């Protein structure tokens, strides 16, 4: 009888303890390490323009990592490391709400897209960058699917089933949120972006 009572207690304890652990630690997607190519660049570690604390309160679909501020002759560039459980969770609505970015307009550029908006009464441009040529504001679906497109819906159905079991070990989607008043920044992807952002650290 004592054994029975003990395991009953263990059962209730496991249930309550796991709840406390869940709410205490709130698992978030992993973040890659960022290695600086020059040691003195550690001084860039800053959140003068955007406080990292604002974004830390986002829900547990996104993890906020390091924050840097690069300043050149004309503009500032705030870079914030982000990681999502899945690519589909890259949605700026929450971030825009937290940062109070208004008048948002999305621009498409070949396979990438970025946004223009007003932040602290200044026009800014922003997107989440995987590298110098690949950046996204969101991943819009091409069109609204018809109900009789069975192949599509079977794919969606199977993907949803798959996510039930594998979403605890997803392939994280990581990117760097870059926000700057340099409105031409995303319009010429490649070497210029590398020079301003990606050459300063290793991010793979």
């Amino acid at each position, binding site marked *: 009888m004592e054994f029975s009572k003990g395991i009953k207690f263990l059962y209730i304890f496991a249930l309550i303890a796991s709840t406390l652990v869940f709410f205490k630690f709130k698992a978030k997607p992993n973040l890659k390490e960022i290695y600086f190519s020059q040691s003195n660049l550690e001084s860039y570690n800053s959140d003068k323009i955007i406080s990292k604390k604002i974004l830390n309160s986002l829900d547990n679909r996104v993890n906020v990592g390091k924050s840097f501020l690069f300043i050149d002759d004309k503009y500032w560039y705030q870079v914030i490391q982000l990681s999502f459980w899945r690519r589909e*969770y890259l949605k700026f609505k929450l971030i825009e709400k937290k940062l109070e970015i208004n008048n948002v307009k999305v621009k498409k550029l070949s396979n990438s897209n970025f946004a223009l908006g007003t932040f602290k009464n200044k026009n800014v441009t922003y997107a989440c960058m995987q590298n110098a040529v690949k950046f996204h504001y969101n991943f819009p679906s091409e069109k609204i699917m018809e109900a009789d497109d069975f192949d599509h819906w079977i794919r969606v159905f199977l993907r949803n089933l798959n996510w039930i079991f594998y979403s605890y070990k997803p392939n994280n989607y990581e990117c760097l949120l870059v926000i700057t008043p340099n409105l031409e920044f995303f319009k010429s992807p490649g070497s210029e972006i590398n020079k301003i952002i990606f050459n300063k650290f290793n991010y793979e």
Partner: protein
Amino acid sequence: MGYYGQWLFISYIKSKMGILKNFSYFRFTLLTLITLNIILLNYLKMSYYSQIINLLISYGIYDFYNNVEFKVEKKVNIFKTILAFSLLIITLYRSFWLHINDNFIFLFFPLLLISLDLFFNNIFNTINNLKPILMALLFPIGKLLFIPLSIVLTPFSTLFTWITLNALGFYSVMSGQEIFFSNSGINITFSCSGAGQIIFSFTAMLIFNFCFPLKNRKFLLIQLFRTFLFTFSINIIRLFLLTIFVNTAGRVDDFSIFDYLHGGNGGLFFTFFSILISCESYKRIYFRNI
């Protein structure tokens, strides 16, 4: 000796109150599980529909266990205990990674309820009383049925909305799942097809049937058919209104009746009315055949 006597007395009282003791552990754990599930659904920002369905299911399950007396097992069944514990640990382990939009939340409560039932109750009791587990499974089954039901319903919803519009003098044109009206139009997607509302209403009716069973299975089928008709018709009225007020969509400065009925709390009114009518119908069938 005094201590020994006290121990004997407590053991005697405990043995007399064995059933109550066992059941109170069970009830406490069940209530903990229900509370935990409600908090989790709220934390994970589930839709109001899902949260209301979950409350209905939780009520049904608690009501069932409240009215059923179980035989207490005299011996601990090791196999059953290991099975229950394994299920508990696997479910809890997976739930550490729960996040918003994670579909595992639909299985969280049913899996833990199966584990709880296995752990505390006699295995024959569990097999003979599958109702609470079936009730808990209504939640994931509803989500599983959403896409297939939407595929079937979307063409019908589009067709009947178009017929209603033209019958009432609002000239419109239908193309696939789109309806064009007055230089604008609506696209009837899965969330507009009414599948969600029908699943919601069916779940409510099935829980009623678990708690206040109808005498005959035929009556339940009649009631489910009525519920389908009520809910489907009310959704057609909603789509009709959305089409008429489509020109108000996306208004920033002014109140938009389209946006209110389409997204916000306005959409819940229609579900409320369909549930209200369905409940009245259920009540009438129940009291007529009691």
